[in-house]
């Protein structure tokens, strides 16, 4: 129905010539815009309701009695549903350490949270379908679990800033109980908040995506970044690492690029690099981690993300 509507606007109202490039671009733009915003509103609302059940204080409580491995799995899962502002990473880190949560488990949490990004989930679902979305969430969790396990095994506690371990205020933070009405209100506010922040990025990105869809030749990327190029994945990751905050904007563009021959693994690796590794986050984490640990963290993440990219290029 949406397809018909986009077609109707393009060919009947604006009256573009059927099959012409501008018509193609506009058709693609209208269809994707409506679909993406509908999904974005719906899914973010649902995720927000789920999140209202997992404030950081509760997550800390759940994780504080867990051993490694089980703890890593739980931490990775909780990382997806616990809402927190990137600037909370430091107090959360200190709080987790104080609660006796192992370093590796804490990292599983910190990795999965940006790795499995809700906006990315919506866009992947809208543009690629549920299979790619499930793969994205699954691999994000795996990277978080194993990244955390490796950091735990390496015993890197010495590279955490000393003051973190000296911190004891024994404060039990209160977990605020919410009524269902408050949860729905919270979800509504959160959805509004996220939409307000990303709508322009997404619109511009869908626009560029539409342009690529209409004007870039079909085999353009196959030559440079297709399956045949073994360097496509590491190059995509290296480009993705310094990019940040445009996770929302990047996906519609890579979607269009994929149409032109970029492979799924390369796209996934690029997206993960954009969302999970970012300079602002490193600067924030520097307050609690010494440079070597930060380096290990970035190193492990980069290698795992590249591995994920190769894996998907090989199996899909």
């Amino acid at each position, binding site marked *: 129905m949406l397809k018909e509507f986009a077609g109707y606007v393009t060919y009947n109202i604006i009256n573009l010539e059927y099959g012409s490039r501008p018509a193609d671009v506009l058709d693609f733009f209208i269809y994707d815009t409506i679909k993406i915003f509908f999904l974005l509103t719906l899914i973010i609302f649902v995720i927000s309701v789920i999140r209202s059940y997992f404030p950081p204080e509760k997550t800390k409580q759940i994780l504080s009695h867990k051993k490694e491995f089980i703890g890593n799995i739980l931490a990775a899962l909780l990382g997806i549903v616990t809402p927190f502002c990137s600037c909370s990473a430091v107090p959360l880190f200190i709080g987790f350490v104080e609660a006796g949560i192992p370093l590796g488990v804490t990292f599983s949490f910190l990795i999965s949270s940006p790795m499995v990004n809700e906006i990315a989930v919506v866009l992947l679902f809208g543009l690629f379908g549920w299979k790619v979305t499930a793969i994205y969430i699954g691999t994000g969790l795996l990277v978080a679990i194993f990244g955390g396990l490796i950091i735990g095994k390496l015993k890197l506690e010495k590279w955490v800033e000393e003051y973190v371990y000296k911190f004891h*205020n024994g404060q039990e933070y209160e977990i605020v109980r919410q009524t269902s009405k408050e949860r729905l209100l919270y979800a509504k506010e959160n959805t509004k908040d996220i939409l307000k922040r990303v709508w322009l990025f997404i619109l511009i990105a869908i626009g560029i995506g539409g342009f690529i869809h209409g004007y870039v030749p079909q085999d353009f990327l196959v030559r440079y970044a297709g399956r045949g190029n073994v360097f496509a994945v590491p190059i995509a990751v290296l480009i993705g690492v310094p990019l940040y905050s445009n996770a929302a904007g990047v996906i519609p563009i890579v979607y269009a690029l994929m149409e032109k021959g970029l492979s799924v693994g390369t796209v996934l690796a690029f997206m993960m690099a954009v969302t999970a590794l970012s300079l602002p986050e490193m600067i924030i984490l520097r307050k609690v981690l010494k440079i070597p640990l930060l380096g290990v963290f970035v190193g492990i993440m980069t290698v795992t993300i590249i591995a994920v990219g190769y894996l998907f290029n090989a199996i899909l």
Partner: protein
Amino acid sequence: MEIKVLGPGCPNCRMLEEIVKKAIIELGIDAKVEKVTNIIEIMKYTMSTPGLVINGKLKHSGKPLPSLEKVKELIQQENIKG
């Protein structure tokens, strides 16, 4: 009245500070707004920033940010008591 905005200095924390300042002006209340950026100080109240503390009590923490109306309401609750 003493109001503290807790946060290490991210965009969200700055936005909350703006909201609080606007709320005070609109309510015409005499209040001191202090920005707390020291992590240890912040953690006396909460783990999830940005946080809002009025007269020593934590009134809001984490995301999403409270609306201007909500902040006004929180300030007024304390204003009546004090």
